[in-house]
Structure formats: C-alpha cells, structure tokens
C-alpha cells in the first residue's frame, strides 16, 4: 500500500490560485523530490498530501485509498504510518529533545522506557545529535532543530517520510549527511520519501523522481537521469532554475 499518488490537485487561498491541477506518482523505496523556486507552492502541496490543508479539487491515494474521502479516524490510522519534518521544525517546545523524539513512541507503541530511550538515542545519533536528549528546543540552533525534527519523524520507522527543506540553513557537511541519512532510510525500509527543496545539490545527491513546480503548476516531471540527459529540451524556467544553481553548464 505504500505507493502514493496525487491526481489533479488544485488549491486556492481566497482568490489566489496556489496549485493548478497537479498530478504525480511518488515511488516507494525512492527519494521523490519536489523542487521549485520560493513561493511556488511546494509546502502547500506537501500539506495537501498529509491532510493539513484540504485542496478544493483532486485526490490523494495512499495505495488504493483516496485519503480525502476518509473519516477523521480513518485518516489518523493512515497518518500513523507517516513521518513529517516541517520547514519550521515544529518541535514541541515544552518538551526536551529526548521527549520530542520519544513522543510518537510513547503514544503509539507499548515499548518499555528502556526500549524507548534506546530508540531515541539511536535516532538522535543518526542525525548527528547524540547526547542532546536533555536540551530544550529553545536552546538549539535552527539547523539542530531541523535535525531533531527529522529524528522525531523517523522514530516510528514510517512507511512514508515527508521532509520540507530538510537541509536549508545547514552547513554543507551536515547538509550532505542529512541527505545521506534520508537516502539510507529510504532504501533500508523501502519508504516512500518525499523531499521538498530548492537545493539542487540535494537533488543531484539523492533525487530519483523529480517534480518541478513553477508558480503552482507542475512544469516538468521525470527521473533525474531524464532531467540531466537533455537540458536543452527542458522547459525554459527549469533550465534557468538549473543553471542558476551553477550545477549545470549555462
């Protein structure tokens, strides 16, 4: 049931048409990337998929089930297989780092305290923050919060992993480590991973399927290889986007 497909998603905020008829299939066991310039609707699309924003039109299929048709209770059952890293990290600021990561485990598993602490230590170590359990979110830098957010998102080994800008604001080394981690997890647990980014270095590192959004429209989609094979054949705004990053020749 781990294929994720969206069909004809449209979203308006008042009179602003933010998403225009977007369809895409996210592949399991792969890192699917949504790329595009700032303000093009990437975060809104991600929130439409996980049910935080309801699109006016369209369908979101988790496996064969249209998520948008489900009752709140049925939606929650699907959401429990899903981990999400928010652009703003969204850590619970009344809890320590350790409690943040332990939270989904406490709510949804029957694990003992020792098992939970082991899992928390393991997740924090994987994001390079071993030993920070006792700190509060307010004591962390933006990049550290992002990484705690990722640790919390992967605590339950989700089938679907959504990351909104996982490495913006991180130094290049840490950014690459996070990319590697996301890629490893995707392969290890065959998760359907969706990464939103405007960092083309990430795309080159781990992108497999790519959806390019431009002013709320799906301008181009395909595999990374397709994208790099013939740059001249791509839509001009995607070409400009790629060239501006300096990663492909102008």
């Amino acid at each position, binding site marked *: 049931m781990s294929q994720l497909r969206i069909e004809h998603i449209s979203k308006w905020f008042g009179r602003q048409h933010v998403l225009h008829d977007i369809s895409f299939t996210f592949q399991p066991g792969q890192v699917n990337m949504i790329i595009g310039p700032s303000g093009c609707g990437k975060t809104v699309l991600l*929130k439409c998929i*996980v*049910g*935080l924003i309801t699109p006016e039109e369209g369908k979101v299929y988790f496996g064969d089930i249209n998520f948008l048709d489900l009752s*709140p*209770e049925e*939606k*929650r*059952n*699907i*959401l*429990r297989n*899903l981990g*999400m890293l*928010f652009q*703003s990290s*969204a*850590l*619970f*600021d*009344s809890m320590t780092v350790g409690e943040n990561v332990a*939270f*989904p485990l*406490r*709510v*949804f598993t029957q694990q003992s305290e020792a098992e939970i602490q082991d899992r928390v230590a393991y997740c924090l170590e994987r994001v390079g923050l071993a030993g920070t359990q006792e700190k509060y979110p307010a004591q962390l830098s933006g990049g550290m919060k992002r990484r705690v957010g990722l640790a919390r998102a992967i605590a339950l080994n989700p089938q679907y992993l959504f990351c909104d800008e996982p490495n913006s604001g991180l130094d290049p080394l840490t950014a690459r480590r996070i990319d590697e981690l996301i890629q490893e997890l995707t392969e290890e647990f065959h998760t359907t991973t969706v990464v939103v980014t405007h960092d083309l270095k990430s795309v080159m590192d781990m992108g497999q399927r790519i959806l390019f959004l431009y002013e709320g429209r799906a301008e181009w989609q395909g595999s990374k290889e397709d994208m790099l094979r013939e740059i001249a054949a791509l839509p001009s705004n995607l070409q400009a986007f790629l060239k501006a990053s300096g990663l492909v020749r102008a």
Partner: protein
Amino acid sequence: MLMNLILKGFESFGEYLLLLRRSFTGLLRFRLYWELWTFESIKIGRDSLFLVTIISLFTGAVTTVQTAYQIVSPFIPKSTIGAIVSTSAILELAPTITSLVLAGRVGSNIASQIGSMRVSEQIDALEVMGINSATYLILPRLFGAIIFFPVLVIYSCFIIHVGGILAGMISGAVNPTQFVIGIRSFYEDFQIIFMLIKAFTFGFIISTVSAYQGYYVRGGALEVGNASTRAVVISSLMILVADYVLAQLLL
C-alpha cells in the same frame, strides 16, 4: 453592521461547539491524559493559590467592615454581620471573584500556550502524527479546570471567612463568637452545592473559551497576544452572564 456582528457571533459559537465535540473523540491512551491532567491541575493550583489567598483575605475583610458600617441600628444583633458576609461569600464572592481572577491567570495562559503551538505548527505536527490535537490539548485542561476550580473556590470561601473574622476583630465591629453564630444562623447545605455548581460552570467556561481562542489563532506572536486578551475578556463576560443565569435558575 450589527447583523454581521451577530452572524459572526453565531458562527464563532458554532465553531466553539464543534471544537468541543471534537475534543471528546479519538482518545488515545489513558495514561497520557492522566499525566497531562495532573500536570495541568498542578499548574492551575500552583499559579493561582497565592493570588486567590490575597484576594479572598481582603474581600472578606472589606465586606465585613462595610457591612458593619451599614448596620447602624442597635436593634440588629452583631451576628448579622457574620451571616451577611458568610452568605455573600458562599453564594457570590468566592465562586465569582475567584473565577474572574482565574480567567485572567489561567485563561490567558491556556490561550497563549495553545495559540503559540498553533502558530509554530506544533498543532499541525500533532495532527500529522495521527493525534486528535483538540482532544490532546483541550481535554486535560478542561478536566484540570472543572476539578480544581471547585477546590480553589472552597479554599477561597474559607479564606474570605478568615478575612472577615480577622477584620471584625481588628476593627472591633464584631467578635469571632458572634461572627460564627451569624454564619451558623443562615447556613444551608444547598448554598454549598450552589457554590460548587458555579465553580464547575466557570471552570468549564474559562478552559474551553480560552482553548477555543488559542486553537484558532492565525498568524504570529502578535495574534497570540490578542487571542490571550480576548480569552480573558470573553470568559469574564460569560462568567458574569452565567452567574446571573444560575442565580435565576437555582435560587
């Protein structure tokens, strides 16, 4: 203009009721709520005890001195002062003043806590985990309030009596024995029940109205501040209305 305002009022009230209903569905595991409930209750008690003590003590003292001032006739026994102070304390002062004070303290706290969780996407994070954020955030605070408000009101009522007796003694208006005789002469069990019904109702109003204000904040820190002020104003108004309605219905 007025019509719009009324419609908006009804819309908010409907939204408030829907949120309440939602907060009673999709419960997770009991232990989680138990912990949250204990935490919220301790916080309500700890945050309010000092303030309630001071205000009750002075309310009792002032009521006694003023009642003594109004009773000039030598034919009215001094114990009447005790009776009047005690009845007002039980029926009105303890539940209403305590709740108005707590509307400022507990209400603004609930609204700003939930509101800041809203604007920093923490509520979204709960929802994405498959947790009913309304239940998770509102239920423990609601139960904390409806159980601990009565406790605080009983405490306040006791302190008002203490304040009254002390003021009577210090001013020489009425001695403690007469005061207690007065308390006894008018006392009925129903008055205590009435007081507890009020406390329960006011606790319900403050926690749910404030949670509602916080839950639907849109924007940033500024809006959280506004929501917190609105929580205090609206719950205070609703307390006064409910106070009147309960008096009409039950007395």
